[in-house]
Every structure is written in structure tokens, then in C-alpha cells.
């Protein structure tokens, strides 16, 4: 106790002796007990715990490679059951990729508008609105899509799309595939709206992080706003924009509730975008009651969850690597 000095080495506290002793005592106790302890590293432990518990619960070697098929027949689970992830993985990748593409186009446009074109007040207002959009629960999008959009999609939009774009892959297909409106197209539509806030926010920050000097140099050479965007801002913000793409994809592939409500719950090779499909996330959400009843199914579904976890970790690592530059400078501003 008699030793004056900082609780941690290397901190310059030259005038420490002027402090009253009780403070210093409390100082040491508090930091040693609270912040030196493992609680401080909990995010890391939590991540490891999630992965560890799921690995423990999955009992991987029971199924092995049969998981990677499209054969899906387990009711009831028994010796002849097959558990192929194929159609679910297809649905996940298809919906997430399409949503990501649409969201990229729209949010790039919105981000450029906000950063470059709009005057201050509309720009701020739209920033607030897009951020608010991020907070709206996915289940609310789900019920809106199911009750309001699905009938419209099934009766009006999808038949006319099919008539007009039948020559485009995915937009033709048999008429019965349209059904009640739920299906891949509806899921993609709602997923797009759901991931737009996050992709817009990242792209906005990337565009803002382009050095002002480069932008001014472009303007001083007689470039218009759009020419500066296209030739200076977009090339320099490229990494951040691709990062946003990845993070949007990660968000879309992990979404379970809204997709489950809208995609039509059919594990199949979809004949068109109007047809029903299924995604990994939606499936493991829907089947959790069966998982509760059948331990074997639980193991399978936990494996599905592990695959989702793996995808999300990879996608997020890439996404954050790419957006790091713009995030840091965004923080500095």
C-alpha cells in the first residue's frame, strides 16, 4: 500500500503523492477486481461460448457429408431419414444475394444523394429517417409483407411481371408458382428494405471519408459534382462500398423471422422467383418445436445454425476489413 504510483505500469502520473490515500486504495481495488478480471473480455468469451455450445450440441460426425445434399426427409426422424441442407442453402444464398444487389444500387444512390447533392436540412432529415428504418423490428416488416404485400404481389404485381418479363430468367416459369404471393420475390423485396439502412450508413461514411483535398482538386480542374463523384469519390471509397455489400449480405442471410413469414416455406428448386423457397435461418426457426421433441433433429438444426454462424463470421470479417479505413476516419470526424 505504501508504494505510490499508478495501478498499471507506464502511465505518467508524476504527481500521484498529492492524492489522499483512500482514493488510491479504492482505485487499486476497483480496477484490480473489476477491470482486470475476465469480465472485461466477455465479448470474446461470448463469441467463443456460442460457437462452443453449438459445436457441443451438434455432434458433427453423426451426419458427416450427407448434410450437403438436397435430399430432405426426416418425418419422423429414424434410420432412413435424410437431412440435406441443399435447398435451404440455395434459398439463403439466392435471397441474400438478390437483396444485396438491390440494396447496393439503392443505398449507393441514397448515400450519394445525402453526401453530395442534397442541401443540409433534407440531408439530415433523410439520414434520421434511414437510421430509424434500421430500428423497425423485422417481424413488423413480416406482418406487413404477409397481410398487405402478399395479396398484391400474388394478384397484381407477379402476374404482370410474368407477362412482361417472361423472357428474363427467373421471371417466367409456370403460372401456378405465383400462388398467394408469398415467395422468393416478396422475401427479397422486404429483405432489401431491411438491409438498406445498414448499407446506406456504411456507404455514406465511406463517401464522407474521401479526403476533402482530393475532392477540391477535382472541382478545381473543372469537374461537375457528378464527375467528382464518379472519378474521385467512388474510386476512393471503393473498399467501403464493397464492405457495405458484405455486411448487407451477412445481415440478409441471417434474417429468419421476416423471411419465414414471406418466403412460402417450400424447400425446392424454385421454378421462378415467384415460387416459394426456404432459407437456412427461416427453417431452423420454424422447426424449433420439432427440435424440442426430437434430439436427432436438434443436432441437425444446430449444425445448420453453425453453418450460418460460419458464414456470418467470414462475411463480417471481410466486411469489416474493407470498411475499416472509412470507419476510422468517420470516427475522427
Amino acid at each position, binding site marked *: 500500500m505504501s508504494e505510490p504510483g499508478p495501478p498499471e505500469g507506464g502511465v505518467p502520473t508524476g504527481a500521484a503523492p498529492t492524492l489522499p490515500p483512500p482514493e488510491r486504495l479504492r482505485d487499486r481495488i476497483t480496477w484490480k477486481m473489476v477491470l482486470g478480471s475476465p469480465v472485461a*473480455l466477455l*465479448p470474446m468469451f461470448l463469441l467463443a461460448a456460442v460457437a462452443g455450445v453449438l459445436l457441443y450440441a451438434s455432434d458433427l460426425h453423426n451426419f458427416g457429408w450427407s448434410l450437403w445434399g438436397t435430399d430432405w426427409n426426416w418425418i419422423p426422424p429414424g434410420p432412413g431419414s435424410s437431412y440435406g441442407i441443399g435447398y435451404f442453402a440455395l434459398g439463403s444464398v439466392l435471397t441474400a444475394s438478390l437483396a444485396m444487389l438491390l440494396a447496393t444500387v439503392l443505398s449507393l444512390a441514397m448515400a450519394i444523394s445525402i453526401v453530395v447533392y442534397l442541401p443540409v436540412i433534407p440531408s439530415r432529415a433523410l439520414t434520421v429517417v434511414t437510421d430509424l428504418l434500421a430500428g423497425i423490428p423485422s417481424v*413488423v*416488416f413480416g*406482418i406487413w409483407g404477409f397481410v398487405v404485400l402478399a395479396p398484391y404481389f400474388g394478384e397484381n404485381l407477379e402476374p404482370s411481371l410474368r407477362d412482361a418479363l417472361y423472357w428474363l430468367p427467373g421471371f417466367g416459369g409456370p403460372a401456378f408458382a405465383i400462388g398467394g404471393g408469398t415467395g422468393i420475390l416478396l422475401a427479397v423485396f422486404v429483405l432489401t428494405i431491411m438491409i438498406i439502412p445498414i448499407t446506406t450508413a456504411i456507404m455514406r461514411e465511406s463517401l464522407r471519408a474521401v479526403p476533402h483535398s482530393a475532392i477540391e482538386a477535382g472541382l478545381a480542374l473543372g469537374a461537375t459534382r457528378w464527375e467528382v463523384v464518379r472519378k474521385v469519390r467512388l474510386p476512393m471509397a471503393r473498399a467501403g462500398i464493397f464492405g457495405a455489400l458484405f455486411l448487407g449480405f451477412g*445481415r440478409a442471410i441471417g434474417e429468419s423471422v421476416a423471411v419465414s413469414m414471406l418466403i412460402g416455406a417450400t424447400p425446392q428448386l424454385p421454378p421462378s422467383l415467384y415460387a416459394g423457397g426456404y432459407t437456412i435461418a427461416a427453417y431452423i426457426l420454424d422447426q424449433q418445436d420439432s427440435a424440442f421433441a426430437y434430439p436427432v433433429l436438434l443436432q441437425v438444426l444446430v449444425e445448420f445454425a453453425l453453418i450460418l454462424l460460419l458464414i456470418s463470421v467470414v462475411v463480417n470479417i471481410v466486411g469489416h476489413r474493407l470498411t475499416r479505413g472509412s470507419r476510422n476516419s468517420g470516427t475522427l470526424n
Partner: protein
Amino acid sequence: MAVQNSTGNPAGDILRYSPGHLRLRFVIDKIVGWVLLLAFLAVLFPLADMLYWVGEKALPTFTMNTLTLNQVGTGGGLHSMIVGTFIILILSTVIATGIGVLAGMYTAEFAPRRVAEAGRVAGYLLAGVPAIVLGYFGFYLLVIYTKWDYNTLAGAITLGIFMVPFVYRATDLAFVNVPHDQREGALAMGASRFQYLRRVAFPIAMPTILSGVFLAMALGMGETAPLVLTVGWSNTVPTNLLQPTGYLTGAIWNFYDFPSTYGSFQTLAFQAAFLLILIVIALNVGVQIISEHYRRKLRGLVG
């Protein structure tokens, strides 16, 4: 008239309407601005449509009974779900704030550089873990393995883990962004680290941390998947934490696909959606007010 004047004007080379200049460039610049604005319409129109329909379906039958009655049969109100939502939200906020703030302070102020970097990456990855995956984690660990069956506490813990990274990142950011001068100044005056953090850094970091907590609450309250897998469902208020409970997102999830012949199930779902949107907006406004309040207070302190 400008064109008229520009003829024979020595400064014709800078005039907007001078002949011989590539006017297309400037037309494109303007058109692009309008076209980009269309993207906002494409996104805001569905949003407005959604808000309209939620209001349209929820409000005509929205009365005090909706807030005070439990759901009975196909009718009644959302009382137990509102209470359940708040029980879960309060517990999970406590968990997430406890872990997130401590870990964030540690990362920003104490951790060696490499540990801090690893912690940040873990935070980002945890935030990116799909909610359904966390749900399975809670489902296996807190419902099946512990043999607790579906219960409120499991939901609160799972949701708390979901919320941790948002609080953690906000706290980390808040402390990292405390101006360097403040820190140097405080330490040079002989303040201990504890005094520095409590008297100098914490007041400055507070609004950002609170924003992070509110954001985490808004996101946590809107989550469905982790709760579906852990909390179960009940239409009465639970008497202890190891019982299942109702919650607002669950009301939507459970009632959304009942056809209208089944009484007011779907209406209850829309009323729950209405309440959720209201609370999200309230939390967002709360964030704005808090950060504005603190900013003013700080400015007053600094002068």
C-alpha cells in the same frame, strides 16, 4: 438574353450558355441528382405504406383494454405481452450494460493494444451473429441442457448477449474519443486513473454510452427469433422468471397468419406492431434528447 450578351463577350468561355461548350456534362450532373433522389422514393414509399397499414389495422380497435386486458381466446388485449416485453427488456439491458460497459472501458482504457484489437473484432463479429444462431445457443444451453424448459430468464439472457456488442462498441468508442488533452491534463494534475475515468472521461463519454444502450434496447426489443426459441409463450403475466411469458414481437409471430375468421388475432398482431414502432421511435427520440442534453451540460461545464 444571356446568350445574346455572350456573343462577342471576351469572357464567353466561362458563360453557362455559350455555344460550343459541352452542355451535356451539366445536364447529366443535374439529371443524376434527380435520378438519385428517386432511390429515396423507392425506399420511403414502402416505409410509408407500412406505417399506414399498421395504423389502419391497429388503431380503429385500439382502446385502453388493449393495454390492460390479457389475451383470452381470440380477443382481449396485450397486457401480459407488454409486461413480458418489459421484464425481458429490463433484465437483458442490465446484463448487456453491465458486460458491455465494463468490457468497453477495459478495451478503450486498459487493454494492451493487441487485446483491444481482438476485443473489437470479437465485438463486431458478435454483432454480426444472426439472432437465430444466438437463439439456438440459448435454446440448447438454457432450455434443454439445464432442463428449465422455456422460460423468461433464458430469453433475457439470450437477448442480453444479443445486445452486448452494441453497448460494448458504443462504450469503447466513447472512451477512445475523449480528447487526448483532457486525459493528459487530468493525469498531469496528479489524478489517478480512477479519478480520471470517473470525473473526466465518464461525463464526456456518457451520452455516447447511453445512445448505445438505447440503440441496443431498440434492437433487442424488436428481436423475435432468440425469444421464440427460449421464452416460449404464455398469455398471462409470469409469476417467476422460470416461467414462459408473452412478448410483443411474439404476438405478431404467433398471430400473423390467422385468417380474419379467427376473431381479432390478426388485429392483436397489428396492435403489437403499432406499439413496437411507437417504442422504437420513443427510444430514438430519447437518444437525441439525451445526447443533446449532455452536450449542453458539458458545454456549460467547459464554458
